[in-house]
């Protein structure tokens, strides 16, 4: 019935797609930023933080199941980084998003473990910093008027999603697992659309909270952001400046790519023609190694299977 996906089809990178260097660098960056955030949240929120962060992370996780139909069988989803940032301020939002992405990876394999640093960085930190940067700027420009909440929420949610997707594509390209000139415009293109869904839902959520609990919209504004956030914002802005000319030239998306690729496969049978000609890629010296490995592998698996069967028979004998 309500077969909701565990998370929206976004940019959770699985293991195997990032080079070890990129993974480790982003893990280190993420750990540093999360540590700073923990410290700041501890100071600002005090003893309420644990329950509040925990439950809000669960709420964001659950909120990602809410969707609404858009044209053509696709649907709009929530990612939540913008909402978390606007409601909680950047530091608490980083923590909440880190928890959400961490649990998605650890429990549901939605994103890898080695790649988790990168995923938290892209969807959590980049999303949060961009949102915060733009939202605060728009709020200040409109001198804090009511409508700036919604305009700021819309714009920053959209930009947060698009930026995060561009950064994701960039990392994949640097890792050598995709081609920059295709992936960046493709990811950017589809997230330009996904970003609208995010933005609309974010504004809806802000409107709801504005009506019901306007006091909640003030928590995130209580503390002015430190220099670190602005610096991070600047770095990310630069990255966008580099990536966006590429993005605008090719308005397609990951899902588009998916469909087209399926179409290509069917039309040309491309991958299936490769195998007969070349038996297996890397034939030669490596072939022998592969055969040996295959034999060893079979022995290992067979050994374990045998040992298990034996152990189980013993157990059942004992229990009888």
């Amino acid at each position, binding site marked *: 019935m309500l077969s909701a996906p565990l998370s929206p089809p976004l940019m959770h990178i*699985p*293991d*195997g*797609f*990032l080079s*070890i260097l990129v*993974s480790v660098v982003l893990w280190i960056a993420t750990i540093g930023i999360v*540590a700073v955030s923990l410290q700041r949240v*501890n100071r600002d929120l005090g*003893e309420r*933080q*644990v*329950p*509040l962060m*925990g*439950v809000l*992370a*669960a*709420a964001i*996780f*659950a*909120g990602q*199941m*809410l969707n*609404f139909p858009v044209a053509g069988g696709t649907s709009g989803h*929530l990612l939540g980084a913008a*909402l978390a940032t606007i409601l909680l301020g950047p530091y608490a939002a980083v*923590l909440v998003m*880190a928890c959400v992405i961490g*649990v998605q990876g*650890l*429990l*549901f*394999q939605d994103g*890898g*473990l080695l790649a988790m640093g990168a995923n938290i960085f892209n969807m959590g930190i980049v999303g949060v910093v961009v949102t915060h940067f733009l939202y605060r700027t728009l709020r200040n420009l409109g001198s804090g008027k009511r409508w700036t909440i919604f305009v700021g929420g819309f714009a920053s949610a959209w930009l947060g999603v698009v930026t995060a997707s561009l950064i994701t594509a960039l990392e*994949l390209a640097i890792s050598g697992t995709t081609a920059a000139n295709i992936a960046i415009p493709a*990811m950017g293109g589809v997230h330009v659309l996904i970003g609208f869904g995010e933005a*609309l*839902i*974010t504004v*809806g*959520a*802000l*409107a*709801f909270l504005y009506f*019901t609990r306007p006091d909640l919209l003030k928590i995130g504004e209580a503390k002015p952001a430190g220099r670190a956030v602005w610096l991070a914002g600047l770095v990310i802005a630069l990255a966008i400046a580099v990536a966006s000319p590429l993005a605008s030239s090719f308005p397609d998306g990951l899902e588009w790519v998916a469909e087209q690729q399926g179409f290509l496969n069917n039309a*040309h049978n*491309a991958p299936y023609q490769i195998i007969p000609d*070349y038996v297996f*890629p*890397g034939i030669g*010296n490596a072939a022998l*190694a*592969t055969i040996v*490995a295959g034999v*060893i*592998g079979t022995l290992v698996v067979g050994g*374990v299977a045998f040992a*298990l069967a034996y152990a189980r028979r013993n157990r059942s004998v004992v229990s009888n």
Partner: protein
Amino acid sequence: MHVHFLDPFHNGTSLIHRLDPRVKLVFTLAYIVTASLLPFGAWAAYVLLLAIVLSVELASELGIGYVLRRALLATPFVLAAVPLIFTVPGTLLFTFSLGAWTFTASLEGVERLLSIAFKSWVSVQMAIVLAATTSFPNLLMAMRGIGIPRLLVAIVGLMWRYIFVLVDQALRLLRARAARSGATPEMGRRVGGSIVWRAQTTGGMAGNLLMRGFERGDRIYAAMAARGYDGEVRAFPLPQVPLTQWFGLGAAIFLFALILLFSILIVG
């Protein structure tokens, strides 16, 4: 309504279930790091990795079918690597044109794509085994064991506890919306409202969830305070990891290192 499907843990008594969660977590990470570090096209090493993960699956008594089925969830991302076929220079395989573009596929590109897909596939399997054989409280213990700050572990623990409550809530909100999404066609109206209105309604539901999150957060804080909570997260010290498991883990990491070394030597 109760959401059981969220909990990937499968109760059991297999060898893998009984291992210390910290050992499992470190082993899984070591395995995934090894897979990531292997050069493209090191098929012999890949086969060994596959054998290792299949053995672990067998030993976990989860059923290989279960793991393989779940592992498919991660496959759509492979599409991100598909352009490699056409962008990595090397031996020409075939070309075709689509509209104004001409695509040229290379053998090296295909090899790289398959390598990435394979590494990702085995890594995801190992992660599935970890999540399916380790209850979440034990995973939390493992997280503490590898040095994640207690505060963060406490937050994640609470989050996990309330995921069930709030996902249930989200599903009920979706159900309420579906129940009132009714219309009679003969009136000949445009049914369903505008996209913006739909999105606003969905946003309202998201806001609703968040507000409940806030209010529940307050009530939980009250419940914790009522039992003496003062902001510091306290817990029992962790139990020791059994010596044999230490050795097992050490041996496994040594094996991974060997596989890495040889495949780097052979394939380059």
